C-alpha cells in the first residue's frame, strides 16, 4: 500500500500510468476517447474549387476559414478549438470518396459545404450512412429537401422554389408575367432542369405564354447563336436558368448583342455580377444576400471580411460562414458534439442571426433554413463604382409576411426522414 502510494506519487511513474491508460482507452474505444480528450472539433469542408462553380467555391473557403478563425479566437467551443479540413469536391464521385474519407479516417464531427446539387446528394448519402451531420451551403435542387431529404442534412442555401418565388414577386410587381411571351435558357444538368421546372410552373400559374426552352451545355462559353435566336423570336421576357460562369458570359453577351428585351433569371451570384462588370451586368435577379444588405450584423460582417481578405464578401462566403457559426452555437448551447442533440437543437424553436434584418431558422420537417432574400439589378447611377454598380432590393418577403411564404409547403415538396 505504501509502495503503491509512493509509486503513484512519483511524477514520472504517474505520467507513464496515465499515458498507458489513455493509450489503452484510445485503442479500446477511440470514438469515446476522442470526444473526451479536448482535441479539436474537426469540420470536413467540401466545395468545388475548379470548374464552372470554382469561383463560388473559392468564396466558400474564405467564409468557412473566417468562421473557424472567429470561433477559435473566442476560445473555441466546449474548450476545444475548431479545425477545418477543406478540399476540392470536384464532382459527385470524388465528393463521395472524399466525404467518406473525412468521416472514416479524419473522424470529422460534421461535414459542411458543397455547391453542386449532384455532389451534395452524394455527400448527404455518405453523411446519412455514417450518421454524421451535413450542413449544405450551396445546393439549390428542391429534391434535396423533398424526395432526397435526409435527417442528417440541413440546408443553409435557399432552394430553387425560393429563388423562383423571389424573382416571381419582382416580375409580377413589374407586370412582366401575365400574357407575356417568355423564352428560357437553362443549364443542362440537374440544377438547371429543376430550376426550369419551378420557373415554368410559376409562369404557367400566373398566365405567361411559354415560347421555348434551350438547354445549354455547362461548358459552353459563347452564346451568339442563342442571342441571335432571341432577336429573331422577339419574346417579351427572357429567363435564364443558367449556372456559374455560364451566367456571367450569357449576361455579358446579352449586353453586347444589345438586346432590349427584359432579362431576368432565377439564380444569380455576386461572382457572376462582378465578372460581368459594370458594362456587362443586366437583368433582374433573385439573390440570397449581397454586401449591400442593410442590417447592422451584415455591415459588421462586411467590414470584418474586408479586413481579413481585402475584398468584399460574396453570397456563397456568407452561407459557409453561417454554417460553421451555427454549428458552433449549437454545440455550445447543447454542450455536446453528439449528432442527435445537435439535430434536436437545430430542429427546435431556435433562430439564428443570419446577417439579415430578421433572424432565420430551420424548418423541422425538411431542414430548410428560411430567411430574407433580395433581388438585385444594375444601378441607374452612371457614376456608380465597382462595388455599387448593382442595387439590392428591400428584403423579400416583406416585413409583415411570414418568412415561409417563399419556400415550398409540405404538400408541394414532401420530405420523409428515414
Amino acid at each position: 500500500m505504501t509502495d503503491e502510494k509512493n509509486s503513484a506519487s512519483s511524477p514520472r511513474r504517474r505520467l507513464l500510468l496515465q499515458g498507458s491508460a489513455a493509450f489503452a482507452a484510445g485503442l479500446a474505444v477511440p470514438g469515446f476517447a476522442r470526444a473526451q480528450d479536448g482535441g479539436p472539433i474537426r469540420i470536413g469542408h467540401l466545395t468545388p474549387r475548379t470548374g464552372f462553380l470554382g469561383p463560388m467555391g473559392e468564396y466558400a473557403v474564405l467564409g468557412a476559414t473566417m468562421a473557424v478563425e472567429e470561433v477559435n479566437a473566442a476560445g473555441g467551443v466546449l474548450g476545444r478549438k475548431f479545425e477545418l479540413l477543406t478540399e476540392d469536391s470536384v464532382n459527385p464521385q470524388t465528393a463521395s470518396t472524399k466525404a467518406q474519407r473525412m468521416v472514416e479516417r479524419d473522424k470529422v464531427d460534421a461535414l459542411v459545404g458543397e455547391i453542386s446539387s449532384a455532389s451534395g446528394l452524394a455527400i448527404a448519402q455518405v453523411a446519412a450512412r455514417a450518421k454524421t451531420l451535413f450542413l449544405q451551403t450551396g445546393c439549390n435542387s428542391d429534391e434535396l429537401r423533398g424526395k432526397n431529404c435526409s435527417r442528417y442534412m440541413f440546408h443553409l442555401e435557399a432552394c430553387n422554389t425560393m429563388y423562383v418565388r423571389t424573382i416571381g414577386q419582382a416580375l409580377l410587381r413589374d407586370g412582366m408575367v401575365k400574357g407575356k411571351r417568355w423564352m428560357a435558357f437553362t443549364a443542362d444538368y440537374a440544377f438547371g432542369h429543376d430550376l426550369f421546372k419551378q420557373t415554368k410552373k410559376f409562369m404557367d400559374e400566373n398566365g405567361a405564354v411559354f415560347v421555348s426552352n434551350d438547354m445549354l451545355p455547362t461548358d459552353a462559353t459563347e452564346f451568339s447563336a442563342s442571342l441571335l435566336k432571341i432577336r429573331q423570336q422577339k419574346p417579351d421576357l427572357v429567363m435564364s436558368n443558367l449556372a456559374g460562369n455560364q451566367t456571367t458570359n450569357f449576361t455579358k453577351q446579352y449586353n453586347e448583342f444589345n438586346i432590349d428585351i427584359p432579362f431576368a433569371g432565377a439564380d444569380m451570384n455576386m461572382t457572376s455580377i462582378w465578372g460581368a462588370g459594370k458594362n456587362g451586368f443586366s437583368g433582374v435577379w433573385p439573390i440570397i444576400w449581397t454586401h449591400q444588405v442593410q442590417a447592422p450584423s451584415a455591415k459588421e460582417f462586411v467590414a470584418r471580411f474586408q479586413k481579413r481578405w481585402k475584398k468584399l464578401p460574396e453570397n456563397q462566403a456568407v452561407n459557409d460562414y453561417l454554417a460553421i457559426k451555427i454549428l458552433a452555437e449549437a454545440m455550445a448551447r447543447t454542450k455536446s458534439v453528439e449528432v442527435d442533440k445537435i439535430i434536436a437543437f437545430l430542429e427546435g424553436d431556435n433562430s439564428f442571426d443570419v446577417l439579415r434584418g430578421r433572424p432565420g431558422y430551420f424548418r423541422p420537417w425538411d431542414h430548410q433554413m428560411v430567411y430574407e432574400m433580395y433581388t438585385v439589378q444594375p444601378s441607374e447611377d452612371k457614376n456608380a463604382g465597382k462595388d455599387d454598380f448593382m442595387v439590392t432590393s428591400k428584403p423579400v418577403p416583406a416585413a409583415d409576411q411570414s418568412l415561409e411564404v417563399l419556400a415550398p409547403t409540405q404538400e408541394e415538396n414532401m420530405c420523409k426522414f428515414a
Partner: protein
Amino acid sequence: MPTELIFIIQQVANGLLLGFYYLLIALGLSIIFSLGGIVNLAHGAFYAIGAYLIVFLSDSLGYGLAFVVSPVAVGVLGMLVERFFFRRFYRADPTLSLLFTFALSMVIEQALRMIFGASPLSFSIPEFAHGQVIVGDFFYPVYRIGMLFVAIAAVVGTWLLLNRTAFGKIVKAGINDPDMVRAMGISLNPVMTAVCGLGIGLAGLSGVLLAPITGVQPAMGQEILTAAFVVVVIGGLGSFWGVVVAAMLVGVIRGLTSYFYPPASEASLYLLMLLILVLRPRGLLGEKFERLE
C-alpha cells in the same frame, strides 16, 4: 425570303465567324505539332495568359497599346519555353512532351488562380467598339466584326510567312524532312524558337480578342483547347488549309446545332470529328508523315 431561311443564313454567318476564333488557336497548335512533333497541351493556358495580360495591362497602358503588347509578350514567353523546355523533347518519346505540356498547363492555370483568384475578372469591350452593325435583317456587334478582321489578318499573315518567305521554306522543309535540313547545314533550333513564338503568340492573341466576350478566369484555356484539338484533328496534320476548312466547318456545325438542338452544341464537334476520322483517318487535308507513321 422566308424568315426561317434568313435565321439560318444568319446562324451560318455567325458560325463562320466563330470558326475564325477556333482557327486562331488551332493554327498555332498545328504548326508547333507539325514542326516539333510536340502536342502542346499548354496551348490553352497561353491563351488564358493572353486574356489576363490584356485585362491587367489595359489599366496602365490603355487598351490600344495593351492589345499589341499582350500577344507579343505571350509570344516571347513561348520562345522562352521553347528555348528552355520544348527543345529537349523533339527527339524524345512523344509521351514525355505530352506529360510536360500537360504539367505546364496545370502549373499556369493554378498560378493564375493563385495570383488573380478563381472568380472571373470583369473586362468589357472598349468604348470605341460598342454598337452593332445592322444591314436589313442582318445584325452583328461591331466588336465581333473587328475581331474577324484581326483574325483574318493574323491568318493571312501567317500564311504569307510560311509560304512566301525563306523562313517559311525552312519551316516546310523541316516539317517534311528535318534530317535533310540539318544535312544542308541549316540549324532548325532558331526556326523552332520562332515557330513556337508565333504559334503561342497566336494563342495569346485569341485570348486578347475573346477576353471581353467570355469570362476571364483560370480554366478558360482548358475550355477552348479541346475545341482547338478537334479542329486540328479534323483538318489533318500539317495542312494549313485543312485547319482553315476544319475551323469553319466546326464553327458552322456548332452554330447550327446551337440553333436547332442546343443541348448537343458541344457534342456536335466530337460527332463531326468521329465521322471525319472514320471516313478519312488522316483528317480532311492531312498529309502523310513518315516519322509519325
